[in-house]
C-alpha cells in the first residue's frame, strides 16, 4: 500500500515535471530543409518570437502557406533566442541550418563575416523588397561590408511607459507625461515621495538597451567612427546623474533585467520606464491604466533607441527563390498591417503612415514617430556585439550601480577594454 502511494506520488511528480518542461523542446527536423516534398518546397524558418507576438507570426505564416501560389511551405520553429544562437552555431557549420533565420540586426556581422549568412542584394535589386520603403535607420544596419545581408522583419522604438494610476496617486496629471529630463526627475521624485512605488528605472542586463537613451540624450555614445568613446565627458555626466537618481534617490532598484523591470511595471510598482511596443497588448489585457509618451528630451535633444529584427538567408539554404518570395510577402503592405495590428509593432515600411487600417491601434503611430526621425540603434555593425555588451558595458553599469564605483574610472577601464575588442 505504502509503495503504491509512493509510486503514485512519483508518477504524479513525473507527470507535472514533464508537463512543465514539455514546452522547452523545439522542433528540429532541419533535415527536411530545402528538400522538395513532391512538388512542395519546404522552407525552414527559425526565430525567437516566444512572446505573444509569436501567435500573430504563426497565424501569418499559416496564411502564407495556404495562400501562396508557388506551393511553398514555411516550416517554422520558435525557440528562445539563446537556444536559437546555440543551435545555429552547431547546425550552420555542417550545412544543416534553417533556410531563414530571424534575429536582431546587431548580430549580422557575427554571422556574415564567417559566411554563415549570405548576401541578399538581389532581393532588393530584383524588386522583392522595395528599398525606398525601408526605414533609413534600418537600411545601414541590414548591411555588412556594403552588402545587404538581411531584409526587414520588424522594427520597434522605445517609448516612455507611465502608469496613470500611480501618477494620480502621486498628485501628478495623468495626461501630461514628462517631456524633459528635469520633468522626469521631478515626477519620479514625487512618486517616490508620495507613494510607496518606484518612480523611474532602466534595466541593465538581458534587456533591450535603455541606458543608451540617456547617453544619446546628452550627446554621448559608445562607439563613434570605429573608436570607443564610452568614457566621454558627456557620458560621465549622464551616468553620474542617473546613477545618483536611481541608486541614491531611490527612483528604482539598481540592477534589473528586462524581464524584471517589465514585471515591476506590470505589477504596478513602478511609475515610468522605457519599453517597446511589445508590452502594450499585455498591459492592456492586465487592465493597467497606462500611457506612452516620447522619451523625455535630454540636454542634447530628444532621441530614443530603435531596434529591429531582420530575416536572413543562411548558407545552408538551397531555396533562395522560395525564401525571397516569403521575404517579399512579409514586407507587403497587407502583411505589415496584419503584423502591426496583431503585435502593436509599427510597420517596417516608411510609406504607411497614412494607412487607415493602422488607426485602429493608436499606439502604432506613437511608436512609428521616432523611427522616421529621432532614433538610433545600439551597437550595430560589430563582429562581437554580444561580448562588448555583456562583458564590458553591462559590468560597468553593475559596478557603478551596485558597488558605487567611481564613474570616470569605471568608464575609462571599460573604454580601454572596448578599444581592445573593436580593433
Amino acid at each position, binding site marked *: 500500500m*505504502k*509503495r503504491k*502511494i*509512493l509510486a503514485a*506520488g*512519483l508518477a504524479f*511528480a*513525473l507527470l507535472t*515535471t514533464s508537463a*512543465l*518542461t514539455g514546452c*522547452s523542446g523545439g522542433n528540429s527536423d532541419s533535415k527536411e530543409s530545402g528538400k522538395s516534398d513532391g512538388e512542395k518546397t519546404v522552407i525552414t524558418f527559425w526565430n525567437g518570437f516566444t512572446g505573444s507576438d509569436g501567435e500573430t507570426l504563426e497565424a501569418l505564416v499559416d496564411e502564407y502557406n495556404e495562400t501562396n501560389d508557388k506551393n511553398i511551405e514555411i516550416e517554422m520553429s520558435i525557440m528562445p533566442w*539563446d537556444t536559437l*544562437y*546555440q543551435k545555429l*552555431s552547431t547546425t*550552420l*557549420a*555542417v550545412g544543416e541550418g534553417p533556410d531563414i533565420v530571424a534575429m536582431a540586426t546587431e548580430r549580422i556581422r*557575427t*554571422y556574415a*563575416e*564567417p*559566411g*554563415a549568412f549570405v548576401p541578399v542584394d538581389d532581393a532588393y535589386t530584383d524588386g522583392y523588397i522595395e528599398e525606398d520603403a525601408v526605414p533609413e535607420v534600418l537600411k545601414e544596419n541590414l548591411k555588412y561590408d556594403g552588402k545587404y545581408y538581411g531584409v526587414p522583419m520588424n522594427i520597434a522604438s522605445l517609448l516612455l511607459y507611465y502608469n496613470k494610476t500611480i501618477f494620480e496617486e502621486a498628485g501628478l496629471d495623468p495626461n501630461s507625461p514628462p517631456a524633459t529630463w528635469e520633468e522626469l526627475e521631478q515626477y519620479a521624485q514625487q512618486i517616490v515621495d508620495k507613494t510607496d512605488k518606484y518612480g523611474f528605472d532602466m534595466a541593465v*542586463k*538581458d534587456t533591450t538597451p535603455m541606458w543608451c537613451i540617456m547617453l544619446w540624450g546628452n550627446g554621448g555614445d559608445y562607439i563613434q567612427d570605429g573608436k570607443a568613446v564610452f568614457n566621454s565627458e558627456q557620458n560621465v555626466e549622464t551616468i553620474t546623474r542617473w546613477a545618483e537618481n536611481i541608486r541614491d534617490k531611490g527612483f528604482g*532598484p*539598481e*540592477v*534589473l533585467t528586462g524581464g*524584471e523591470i517589465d*514585471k*515591476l511595471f506590470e*505589477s504596478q*510598482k513602478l511609475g515610468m520606464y522605457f519599453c517597446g511596443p511589445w508590452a502594450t497588448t499585455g498591459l492592456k489585457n492586465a487592465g493597467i491604466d497606462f500611457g506612452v509618451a516620447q522619451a523625455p528630451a535630454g540636454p542634447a535633444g530628444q532621441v530614443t533607441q530603435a531596434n529591429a529584427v531582420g530575416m536572413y538567408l543562411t*548558407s545552408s539554404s538551397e531555396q533562395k527563390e522560395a525564401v525571397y518570395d516569403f521575404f517579399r510577402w512579409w514586407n507587403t503592405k497587407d502583411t505589415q498591417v496584419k503584423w502591426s495590428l496583431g503585435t502593436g509593432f509599427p510597420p517596417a515600411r516608411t510609406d504607411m503612415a497614412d494607412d487607415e487600417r493602422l488607426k485602429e491601434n493608436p499606439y502604432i503611430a506613437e511608436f512609428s514617430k521616432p523611427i522616421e526621425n529621432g532614433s538610433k540603434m545600439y551597437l550595430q555593425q560589430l563582429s*562581437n556585439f*554580444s*561580448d562588448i555588451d*555583456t562583458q564590458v558595458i*553591462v*559590468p560597468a553599469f*553593475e*559596478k557603478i550601480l*551596485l*558597488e558605487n564605483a567611481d564613474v570616470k574610472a569605471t568608464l575609462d577601464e571599460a573604454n580601454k577594454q572596448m578599444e581592445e575588442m573593436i580593433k
Partner: protein
Amino acid sequence: MPLLLYRRVYTMKKKSSLGKARERAGLLFVLPSMTILTIFVFIPLIISFVFSFFKFDMMFNNFEFQKLDNYIRLFQDGKFFNALWNTVYYTVCTVPVQIMISLIVAILIKKQSWFNSFCKTVFFIPAICSMTVISIIWSFLINKDIGMFSYWLELLGFEMVDLLNSPVWAMPTVILVGIWKNLGFYMVILLAGLNGIDESYYEAAVMDGAGAFQKFRKITIPMMMPTLSFTVVNCIIGSFQVFDQVYVMTKGGPLFKTQTLVQLIYSTAFESFDMGYASTIAVALFAITFVVSVLTFKHMTREEDNIA
C-alpha cells in the same frame, strides 16, 4: 563513476574465478553502453582535446594551429581563474552541506511509516524536476519586488535583500537552490545504504551500552562508507559541472561573481564563438575534475579499507 565501476568489477574478478567464456559474456553485456559512451563521450572528448590547440571560426573554417597559445592564454586569463574560484567556492560549500543534510534527512525518515513515505516522495520531487524550471521558480520566489518570500518577510517587518543581484549573496543563493534540488536524489541513495545495514549490529551495540551518537559514529558511518564515497565523488563531479541554475538564475552575474567554469565554456563557445579556446577551458575542467575525484575516491576507499 567509471572508476567506481572498474573497481567493483575488478574486485569481483579477483574473488570469483570467472572463466574466459563468462568474461566474454560480460564484455558482451557492456558492449551496448560502451558503444554509446564511445560515440557520445570518448570521441567528443578526444575531438575537443584536439580542438583545444586550434583557433577557428563559427563555420569551422580557417583552422589555425595555435601550438600551446590557447593554454598560455588560459593561465593568463583572469576570467578563467575567476570562474575556477567560483566553481571551487560552489563545490566546497555544496558537497559537505549536501551530503550532511541528505544523510540527516535519510536517517530521520528511515523507518517505514506512512508519514515517512510521504516525506520521501515530497523530497524526491525536486530531484526529478528540470533544473531550469526550478531555477525560474526560485528566482520568482525570492525576487525582491514581486517575490512571495519577500512579501512574507515584509509582513514580518524585514526587508529582503535583492539576492540574485547582490555580488555577495548571489552565489550562496545559487548554492542553496542546488542543494535543495539534489537533496532527494542523495537522500534516496543514502537511504538504500542505510537500509542495507543489518539491524543486528545496532542490537549488539545497544547490548554493549552504546548511545545514539556512538551507534551513528561506530556503525552507521563505517557501514555506509561505500555509499558515502559514491555520493561524495558524484557530488563533487556534479558541482564542478554546475551550469543550469547559474545560467538561468544569474547568467554568471552580477559582476561575474557566479560565473562557473561550465558557464564560461558555454559563453566562450556559443556567445563569443571561440570554440577552440572553449575547448581549452573544457580540457582544463576535465583535468581538474579528474584529479579531484581520483584523490577523493582514493582517500575515501582508504577509509573504507581501514574500517574493514
